[in-house]
């Protein structure tokens, strides 16, 4: 009897849970958005669409991409919300994304929309390369701040620069592909040859160079603006430098996974993901968002970031990725000894 009494509430709550689940659609959403932002994103979305429950599956960009590719023949995700556009292009070329023009797509900056018609993905916010410069350590070493990418190749900085390895970090690849686009293939590689002489080592993640610069482990870290602003807010003696030639960027983007069983709910989510409200939500952490005229300046973000963003050719980046990485590896990765 006692046991029955104890079990009764469990049964009731189980019943309640199942009936609730029946009313709501659950979406499995793969994402690489920072962990601390996820809850806020889901809550803001649920203000408008309380009937759709988001089940987040979050990991770093590389791992989410690897996971999606590995599940190619048996997709688990309904929607990808917040993954690098370069990764989405990779998925698109495998035929894994559902083409869909979300309502109001024309309001977005065309840079932030896939070129196909109908588009397969739409951008949320940009993720812009920048240089994190530790003022305290640089002063100790007698360095002056670099103003451009070319400056960074100056022998003065020998052994004082860290950047991500493009073979293991999306940010690293973004830098390399932007240099190749800005300087042209030949001069781009020549530039990297010179820069390589200054690099202390290449890291596996894109945020690590900035965090290392923040901790004074290295004076200069090639990373992205978002990370720099966060470390600066945490009290690190950092300057965030936007090199004058322009900076590479990638965006966090949204797409529907082809073959999803919840297509309607997925469309609702993607429609919502490009609304003004959503863009304002992205703006809390990111200074550049997909809808023009929305973004408010974000504290500690460097000025002039939007103008410095190059006209990034994502298709070039995706289609030449393998070739570029192989070339990079043969040039810089075969040196086994740390400098």
């Amino acid at each position, binding site marked *: 009897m006692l046991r029955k009494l104890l079990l009764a509430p469990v049964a009731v709550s189980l019943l309640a849970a199942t009936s609730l689940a029946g009313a709501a659609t659950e979406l499995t959403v793969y994402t690489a958005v920072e962990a601390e932002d996820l809850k806020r994103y889901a809550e803001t979305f649920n203000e408008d669409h309380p009937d759709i429950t988001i089940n987040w599956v979050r990991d770093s960009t590389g791992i989410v991409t*690897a996971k999606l590719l590995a599940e190619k023949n048996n997709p688990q995700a309904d929607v990808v919300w917040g993954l690098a556009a370069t990764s989405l292009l990779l998925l698109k070329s495998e035929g894994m994304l559902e083409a869909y023009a979300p309502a109001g797509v024309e309001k977005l900056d065309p840079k932030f929309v896939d070129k196909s018609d109908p588009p397969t993905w739409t951008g949320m916010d940009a993720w812009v390369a920048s240089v994190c410069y530790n003022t305290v350590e640089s002063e100790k070493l007698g360095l002056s701040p670099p103003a451009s990418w070319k400056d960074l190749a100056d022998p003065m900085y020998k052994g004082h620069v860290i950047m991500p390895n493009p073979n293991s970090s999306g940010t690293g690849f973004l830098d390399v592909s932007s240099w190749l686009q800005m300087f042209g293939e030949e001069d781009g590689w020549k530039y990297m040859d010179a820069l390589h002489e200054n690099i202390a080592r290449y890291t596996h993640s894109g*945020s*690590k160079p900035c965090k290392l610069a923040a*901790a004074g482990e290295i004076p200069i870290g090639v990373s992205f603006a978002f990370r720099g602003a966060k470390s600066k807010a945490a009290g*690190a003696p950092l300057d965030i430098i936007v090199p004058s030639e322009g900076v590479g960027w990638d965006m966090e983007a949204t797409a529907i996974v082809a073959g999803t069983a919840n297509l309607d709910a997925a469309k609702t989510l993607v429609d919502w993901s490009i609304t003004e409200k959503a863009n304002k939500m992205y703006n809390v952490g990111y200074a550049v968002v997909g809808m023009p005229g929305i973004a408010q300046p974000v504290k500690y973000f460097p000025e002039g970031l939007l103008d410095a963003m190059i006209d990034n050719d994502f298709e070039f980046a995706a289609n030449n990725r393998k070739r570029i990485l192989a070339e990079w*590896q043969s040039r810089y990765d075969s040196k*086994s000894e740390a400098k």
Partner: protein
Amino acid sequence: MNPAAKGKLSLPAGRDIKAVVSRDDHMMRWWMALIGVYLIVTLAMPLYAMLSKSVSTYRFDLQQFEFQVSDEAGDFTSPPVLASSLNQTLGAVSAQALNTSADGRLAATEFFPDFSFRSPVNYRIRGTSEQAAYLVGSSLTTGTEWTEIDSNTFRRVQLRPVASTGLGNFSTYFSTPALMGSIRNSLYIAVISTLITVTLAFGFAYALSRSCVRYKSTFRLIAMIPILVPSLLPGIALIYLFGNQGMLKELMFGGTIYGPTGIVLGSVFFTFPHAFLIISTALSISDARYYEAAVSLRSSPWRTFRVVTLPGARYGIISAAFVVFNLVITDFGLPKVIGGQFNVLAVDIYKQVIGQQNFEMGAVVSVVLIIPAILAFTIDRIVQRKQVALLSARAVPYQPSPDKKADSIWLVYCAMVSVFIVGLIAVCQYAALVKFWPYNLTLSLNNYQFDQMDGGGWASYFNSIKLGLLTAVVGTCIVFFGAYLVEKSNGFNTGRGLFQMVAMLPMAIPGMVLGLAYIFFFNSPANPLNVIYGTMTILVVCTVTHFYTVSHLTAVTALKQMDREFEAVAASLKQSALKVFTRVTIPVCLPAILDISIYLFVNAMTTVSAVVFLYSPKTTLASIAVLNMDDAGDIAPAAAMGMMIFYTNAGARILHLFASRKILKRTQAWRQR
């Protein structure tokens, strides 16, 4: 043949005596087969899946694409032509360049040397089979329908490869110097670390067993500390000590800790207890009579050491060397944290799979990594077999006699090694408490707010404990029962031999390789077991398999001490084997069972390599969190999480100690006279 036997030769040969297979025997065979199947599913089949992945290649099949070019007016008058025949006349793409990876792309314009995107000419492209795939821009197109495009769009056409099998991946691997260099690097650090660790551990073990140095039990405890932490923790400590902002960076004299120096120092730390255990076991088996003989023959101490001590311990030393070599060459955490630009095989696998999503190449590097591991393992096995019993029944245990000078030298030596071990741990704890190294040295618990960082937050820590407990319970049951069946069942020798062999295999398989093999095997939609992918179950299965061998050997050793008569007596008393198992075998072997479970728990808490490919967002682990937080640059929180693992493992060890004392008192009273 003796005469007595000759006399019997005339008698007709009787029937062969055949043991009757009892019901119990049948049961035991069934169970053994079941556990055998478990090992095959969790070890042999994933490895096979990985091998087949390494020979799965991607190649541009030019026979599958057909082009047609229009004249300037846009009419398609010329006949369609195959890409392969275009290539034959042009030689645009070499046969080697046609080998590619799953992500390969080949621009269609390669086959049209006079191509201009401004030309008014139009192009048509189609596949000759349904498998043919190409991209127009970034949109995937397949099939045999013609696609007509203008020249400006045609420059955006990329051909995609088709899957086939062959050794192409291996030839690509061996022709890429950056990848090949890793083999040399891996061997280099493994050999250096082995030499240093074995020498240090030998000295330490020698001091504890052959001298009257003080504080022996304290030193013994300290030597075991590194087993309780993940291998990346010493890397983090070394960065705080010798990094560019390190406390002792002057000691590096302008050199850098990132690279082989850091890897070797860290490897010495985390392999030390393994070497120490093996060597001190070897040294503890000694016969004092040899030493007495040496003294009476007026042999110098150095000579005695060379001709008595060293030969006596040589199998232990060789075994320790191979164990350390294997641990270093297969370790992934340490080089990831402190390796800098120094590429090693284990990190290459990670870079290929996570960084480039090139699963095939990851499988190739895995196959390459298995080779030295299996080699070291095999040699070690052969050496072990040669070992003969040194300890005869008449041996007299060696009792060291005090020697003031030597003892104080040994004390300094042991103290130095202990300072190295305790120092690294202490540095980690200090780093975890400092607010913002090196600019704000106030102490705080900020770095323990794991929920603010990558890596899964505190949930990871509790997941790890859950994994540790599950692995300990499930693993101990499977391993001990398996060992029991192998040891105590009758007949069925082939099956038992086979089982023994499979049980030894996990030792030779690096964790990274096992983890990757699990992806290939369990993540395939055709596999009915694919439901466990991404769950705690697969982590438990993987960890049990990864640490199977040592647990199995511990169980077998304990079971061998039990006379087989027990089963025979029970059978004649008409008692079931099950009853003997639960009433006699388990109680008698309880110390070994406890040892196995603590071994599995501690390793489940610290392992990184096997589970790094298998955890899912719901099953993040503390050890992986250390790796990911370090990767994101949150080094202090990584140290903090590492220390949480240390304290948990230390706590578990202490609990284990008390529990085994209590249980031993109850169940092992018969051992006392």
